């Protein structure tokens, strides 16, 4: 990926351009020290003057009111100037309001992402927070030296600013002292905090830029440029950022490695700004140049297809398996996004959607786009979803608009990590409460399954499995403590909604065809062939995990794709590394899916791998194929389970079998209640006794007035073995009523056994 820059040969401004921005994705504006306020036509790079600012106004920064909230109208921007003023200006250049914000120059203004507030910082060392109407709310900090930049986090609850070489993060809602750390060797001149990826970038006079997480831990440090970093900005989707220095514009991945470097001839890049769709950017130079750049050579690959956007409206598709297969697909308008999966290439332009089928590149289906400003595009096998940040819209590959999915709440935006899609379920993290995820049906727009999953801590990354039916749909997510949890779309009221399957995992991805889940974290790749095994047999899942350490991943690797048996990772240095997985689990899964148990068992026997056996055991148990499960458990040396299964298999009563299978998954309570419900009281009591749940056993026995003696007898035995005395009041009460007579007990047990037979 690189930037294609366009710069008019003659500087349109006569002095440094310090404030740039986008009034829409097709129009950029710039403000310069020559007091003019220009808007630019992107095609011809010609500017028209909107207005003239006062002669004493030397702009220093510009921030547009978040566009997702305004829906186009009532656009207003905040402009700071070197005389310490803060101006609110409409897009027509009318100054709505001017307030004295700082002594000396006001250096930067930034709207919060929800549009509720504004922070400014200035030469006087103050960081101030203002309301939407530019009424001073509070002074957040006061330093002796100038504050060059201050930004909000994505949830508008924290503020980042830098004084000299130190960064500070201040939480607004709690009264704790700010997190602070020394970030650079020189003065920090600029910083940004991505709302989407929650990463911080800083640039300093030492010529370096650094990437930090929101706790101030360094993720990336660049080599020194010869000149100070003068500006930087995260793209709206948080995956890229751009930094500006003297005669230089560098496009970087959020991990810090650079996609490309552009040499300019415009002096220091004083300001940069991304267009709302994240495909273009504007930079203002100190010589008065305004540079327009758009992203090209964005590249993605899918199986044997390599897809590259070569121009603003041209995509090139190459088939790796053939030398000649090369397609050029052009669109009418500017391409903003494209994605390929499931044999379909979806290309979004500023006004339309192009849907190409990999079987026929020549005749795309073209649909007009409802929302011009798409921030997210996710594909699944049968449909795809686009989002403008406010709502989600689903489309079929035939180009049919299916429905709008209305997600409750406002603010926050959808991105690839907090939104996941499968054929029948769309999983979205709540916009405000990050501990919740919502489930919807993309085909109807209605709530799907349980509707909502509530977790105890903030959820970071959400995924949903692609294969299988709705019942088998698994949702996996990581939380802020990097643990991985899975959940079912529809749990049918069973108690544990979510289950933890791993820790120290930062990213997740489901296979596009099978239920396999891959997780990345702590320098290794973990693959769960069937993560839903947790709901079958907790111990089994620990066996059914493939762990693959990967060297040199760096601090900040990314999971790109998981299809077939190949996981694609992006290392911290930006290289795409494919990792091959054993083909057997997927083969096994394809057999079990098709209920070809014999083949599955044969495969496992051939390979002789515990993971495979575990997978087989789990899936077999899940699908109630007790024979296969018995063999698999046998291979895993789980003797008691084999016996248990054999027992269960041979049991004539259907209900007891079901209860025994539930028991196998370790859900003793469930099994117990199942047995009690279906009238197998003795089994229930014996289950509780054998799991030492004495109180429950006694409770059931008392409730049904049977086998109290049995419970007491086993309890006695148990205590004797440990050399202890009964001290539970309930048991003491019962002991006074019943006498423990082992002969009688054994007789009763034999009677029960007889009855069951």
């Amino acid at each position, binding site marked *: 990926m690189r930037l294609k820059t366009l710069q008019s040969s003659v500087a349109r401004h006569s002095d*440094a351009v310090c404030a740039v921005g986008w009034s829409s994705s097709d129009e950029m504006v710039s403000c310069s*020290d020559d007091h003019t306020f220009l808007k630019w036509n992107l095609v011809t790079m010609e500017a028209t003057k909107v207005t003239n600012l006062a002669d004493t106004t*030397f702009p*220093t920064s510009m921030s547009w009111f978040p566009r997702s909230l305004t829906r186009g109208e009532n656009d207003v921007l905040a402009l700071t100037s*070197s005389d310490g003023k803060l101006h609110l200006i409409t897009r027509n250049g009318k100054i709505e309001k001017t307030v004295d914000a700082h002594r*000396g*120059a006001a*250096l930067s203004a930034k709207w919060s992402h929800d549009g509720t507030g504004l922070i400014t910082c200035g*030469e006087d060392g103050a960081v101030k927070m203002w309301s939407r109407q530019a009424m001073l709310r509070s002074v957040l900090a006061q330093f002796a*030296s*100038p504050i060059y930049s201050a930004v909000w986090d994505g949830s508008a609850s924290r503020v980042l600013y830098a004084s*000299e070489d130190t960064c500070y993060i201040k939480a607004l809602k709690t009264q704790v002292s700010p997190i602070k750390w020394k970030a650079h060797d*020189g*003065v920090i*001149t600029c910083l940004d905090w991505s709302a989407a990826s929650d990463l911080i970038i800083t640039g300093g*006079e030492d*010529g370096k830029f650094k990437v930090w997480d929101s706790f101030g831990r360094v993720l990336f440090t660049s080599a020194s440029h*010869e*000149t*100070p970093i003068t500006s930087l900005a995260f793209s709206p989707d948080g995956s890229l950022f751009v930094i500006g220095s*003297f005669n230089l514009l560098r496009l970087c991945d959020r991990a810090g490695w650079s996609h490309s470097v552009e040499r300019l001839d415009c*002096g*220091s890049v004083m300001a940069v700004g991304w267009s709302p769709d994240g495909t273009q950017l504007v930079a203002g130079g*100190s*010589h008065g140049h305004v540079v327009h750049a758009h992203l090209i050579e964005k590249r993605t690959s899918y199986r044997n297809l390599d897809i590259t956007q070569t121009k603003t409206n041209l995509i090139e598709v190459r088939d790796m398996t053939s030398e000649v297969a090369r397609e050029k697909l052009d669109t009418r308008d500017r391409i903003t996004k494209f994605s390929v999966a499931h044999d379909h290439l979806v290309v979004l332009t500023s006004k339309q959607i192009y849907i190409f089928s990999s079987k026929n590149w020549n005749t795309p289906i073209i649909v007009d786009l409802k929302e011009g400003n798409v921030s997210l595009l996710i594909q699944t096998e049968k449909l795809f979803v686009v989002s403008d940040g406010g709502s989600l819209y689903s489309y079929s590959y035939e180009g049919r608009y299916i429905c709008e999915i209305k997600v409750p709440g406002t603010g926050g935006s959808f991105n690839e990590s907090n939104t996941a899609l499968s054929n029948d379920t769309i999983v979205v993290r709540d916009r405000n409460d990050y501990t919740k995820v919502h489930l919807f049906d993309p085909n109807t727009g209605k709530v799907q399954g349980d509707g909502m999953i509530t977790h105890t801590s903030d959820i970071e990354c959400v995924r949903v499995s692609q294969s299988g039916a709705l019942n088998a749909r698994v949702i996996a997510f990581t939380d802020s403590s990097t643990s991985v949890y899975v959940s079912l779309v529809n749990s049918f009221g069973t108690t544990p909604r979510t289950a933890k399957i791993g820790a120290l995992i930062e990213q997740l991805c489901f296979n596009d065809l099978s239920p396999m889940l891959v997780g990345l974290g702590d320098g290794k790749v973990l693959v769960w062939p069937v993560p839903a095994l947790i709901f079958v047999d907790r111990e089994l899942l620990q066996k059914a995990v493939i762990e693959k350490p990967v060297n040199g991943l760096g601090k900040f690797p990314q999971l790109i794709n998981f299809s077939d048996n190949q996981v694609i990772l992006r290392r911290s240095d930006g290289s795409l590394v494919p990792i091959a997985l054993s083909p057997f689990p997927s083969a096994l899964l394809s057999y079990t899916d098709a209920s070809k148990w014999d083949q599955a068992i044969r495969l496992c026997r051939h390979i002789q791998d515990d993971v495979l056996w575990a997978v087989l055991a789990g899936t077999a148990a899940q699908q109630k194929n007790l024979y296969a499960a018995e063999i698999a458990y046998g291979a895993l040396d789980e003797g008691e389970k084999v016996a248990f299964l054999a027992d269960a298999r041979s049991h004539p009563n259907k209900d007891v079998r079901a209860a025994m299978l539930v028991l196998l998954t370790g859900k003793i309570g469930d099994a117990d209640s199942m047995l009690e419900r279906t009238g197998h009281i003795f089994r229930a009591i014996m289950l509780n006794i054998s799991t030492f749940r004495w109180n429950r056993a006694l409770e059931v026995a008392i409730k049904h007035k049977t086998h109290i003696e049995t419970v007491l007898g086993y309890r006695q035995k148990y205590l004797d073995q440990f050399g202890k005395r009964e001290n539970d009041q309930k048991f003491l009460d019962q002991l006074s009523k019943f006498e423990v007579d082992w002969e009688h007990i054994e007789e009763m047990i034999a009677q029960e056994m007889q009855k069951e037979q």
Partner: protein
Amino acid sequence: MSFRELRNLCEMCRIVGFPRPISIDSFREPNFALVAELLEWIVLRFEPNALISAKCGTEQERVIFIKSAVLLLLQNARIKLNPKKLYMANGLAVQELIAPLKVLSLADRGTTADAHSVSIPVIRTKLATKMQEVRQCAVLASQLPQTGAALSNLLDRELFFRAERSRAVSRSLPPSAAEGALRNATTALAGLAGQIEERLNNVNSDERSLDEKIDRKRREYEQLQKRLAKLQSFRPQYMDEYEKYEAKLKQLYEIYVLKFRNLSYLQLQMVEMERADRQRQAETETNMRQVVEKMRSETANHAPPIDVSELDDEPEAMRPTGGARKIYGNMIGAGLSDEDESDEEAMASDGDEGGLEMNIDRTRGARSENGQERAIGARGKRTMQHVELEDVDDEVDDEVEHKDGDSGDDF
């Protein structure tokens, strides 16, 4: 100081390639070292040969450095900086530093277009045409003070005139009064005219009497004129005789000239001979003296040295007496006899000059005759023959002009 200036300074330093990165916070505190470094660099950019050093230890050195830097910039780039502000080395110094940096950065960016070079001939021709205007302007400039001076003079007098005017305007003069005054004036004028007429008549009579006088005088003049003509046409009887004598004088004069020539030649001869004689005498004397010396040396102490001295003294003693006498003679006047005496004495002392003496006497006689006849005042005393020659000359001039050339030839 403002943020913008600091930022622009940093930016310009980057553009012009200042070798060190400059932090935007550099001048929050006065930072003389950096100002000096920058200034030195700037000056060297404008004038690579400048002798200037930013290494300033003492206050004096700093002041000198700033001063010389400011001066160099003024000379080389025509950029005037405020040394005080520079010395303060804070934000105000930044403002000052920006000025030259701006020029440099513009130069570095190479923003000049070729269009300017095209317009050079244009402006040149324009200037050429303007030259005439300059001349015109100069003329005007020289005229203006003159006009101004005249104007100022007039304005000086204007004060008086203005009063005059205002008076004239303010005074109300009734027409009757004016008429009366005018009438008075007319009568006065008429009286004046009468006087003048009278005087004119007097002048006429004067004229007539003068005319008569003029006539009379004219007549007298004519008569006198006639008499003059009559007198001029009359030839006196002595004329013939006079002409005869004239011819005779001419002849005599020729003879005189011949003789005078002879005489002067002979006198020359005589002087030469005299000199030769004296020489010979001196030689013989020295010879004699040598002989005597010889003899004396031969005949030791035979003859006393006094004899020799007597011999030496003899001519000398004689000559001074002669000289004194001559002077004396000259003093008493007529001189001729004295000269004769001296001649005689000279002749006597010289000896054999008798023939010549006769010649001289004769010429003298002729001359005295002539001189008496003409009686042309006292000519003063003359020495020797030259005087007489001049006299003759005069005569010749008066009488016959064409003889002048001959007599000139004779000398």
